[in-house]
């Protein structure tokens, strides 16, 4: 056990030494002035002293790094933005990092995990929500850009146990298999109907092509949207 511990300490100090010597840190000056020039005789002792000093230095470096991290997060706290979002009819006052995507705010901050993160680059449509009544990929927009906006997510559709007609239609027409794309498909379907792009199967297929379904439930999705659009 001791041997193992020693080896790990050795590796740790080696790493610390390499890192500091690269960046010309004060530690190198100390060891340099203490040990002096390299000669064949003092190579070994230099290394062992370096390991010792390196270990000590890296141990003391940990609290330093923590302090640094704390100061950064204070800095970040000063940059937090205050944003008001009306999500599924409920007004939420949020303090947000300006870099947070709307998707991350919904999922991580508000725990509305019905909206899915598929590709996080706007290619799959799994994160589709309604923003001011229009469908958008929530991964591609920053939450701070939408102060005062009305947002509808999949969680906002059902009234208690009563599903939205489009949700019911998705179940009836098998518009899903695994279900990962489904919340995006349903939100996109609502947008498609609201835009008036649901008059024929061809039209629905075209206007629903921003939402990928890897299970291949496309015919069911089209049938569900056509059904819900006809019923409204």
């Amino acid at each position, binding site marked *: 056990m001791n041997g193992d511990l020693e080896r790990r300490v050795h590796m740790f100090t080696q790493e610390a030494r390499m890192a500091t010597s690269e960046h010309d840190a004060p530690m190198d000056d100390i060891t340099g002035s203490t040990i002096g020039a390299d000669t064949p005789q003092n190579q070994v002792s230099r290394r062992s002293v370096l390991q010792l000093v390196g270990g000590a230095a890296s141990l003391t470096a940990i609290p330093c790094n923590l302090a640094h991290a704390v100061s950064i997060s204070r800095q970040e706290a000063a940059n937090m933005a205050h944003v008001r979002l009306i999500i599924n009819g409920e007004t939420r006052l949020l303090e947000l990092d300006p870099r947070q995507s709307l998707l991350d705010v919904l999922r991580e901050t508000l725990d509305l995990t019905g909206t899915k993160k598929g590709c996080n*680059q706007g290619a799959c449509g799994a994160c589709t929500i309604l923003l001011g009544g229009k469908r958008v990929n929530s991964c591609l927009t920053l939450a701070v850009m939408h102060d005062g906006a009305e947002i509808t997510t999949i969680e906002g559709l059902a009234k208690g146990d009563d599903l939205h007609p489009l949700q019911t239609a998705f179940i009836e027409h098998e518009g899903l*298999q695994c279900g990962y794309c489904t919340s995006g498909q349903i939100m996109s379907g609502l947008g498609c109907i609201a835009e008036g792009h649901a008059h024929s199967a061809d039209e629905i297929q075209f206007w629903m092509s921003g939402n990928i379904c890897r299970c291949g439930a496309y015919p069911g999705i089209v049938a569900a949207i056509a059904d819900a659009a006809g019923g409204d």
Partner: protein
Amino acid sequence: LRAGSEPAESQVRGGVVWGIGAALREASEVDPRYGGFLNADLAEYVIPVNADIGSIEVDFIDKPDPLLNSIGVKGVGEVAIVGVAPAIANAIYHATGRRLRDLPIRLEDVL
């Protein structure tokens, strides 16, 4: 799943969609220098979208197959992929006279 049931049909439709993807769209492009995949994301690995799929009709020969196993059941889903690419390749041959044997078949292959 029972043959002819909605979930079984749904499985086969999904298989057909995968077959269309394999026949006409999907390919992993490999960087010959380092062996990495060049299109390893959903934006660049092109899978079928809704507009790529027409209507799909699913029918089953609703009979048990005692030769495969004693209770006469079969899997459904992936097996539906198998026939799609040959069917599409045959249709392309019929329409253009080109006998194409590499997938995916893209526009440049029939020009």
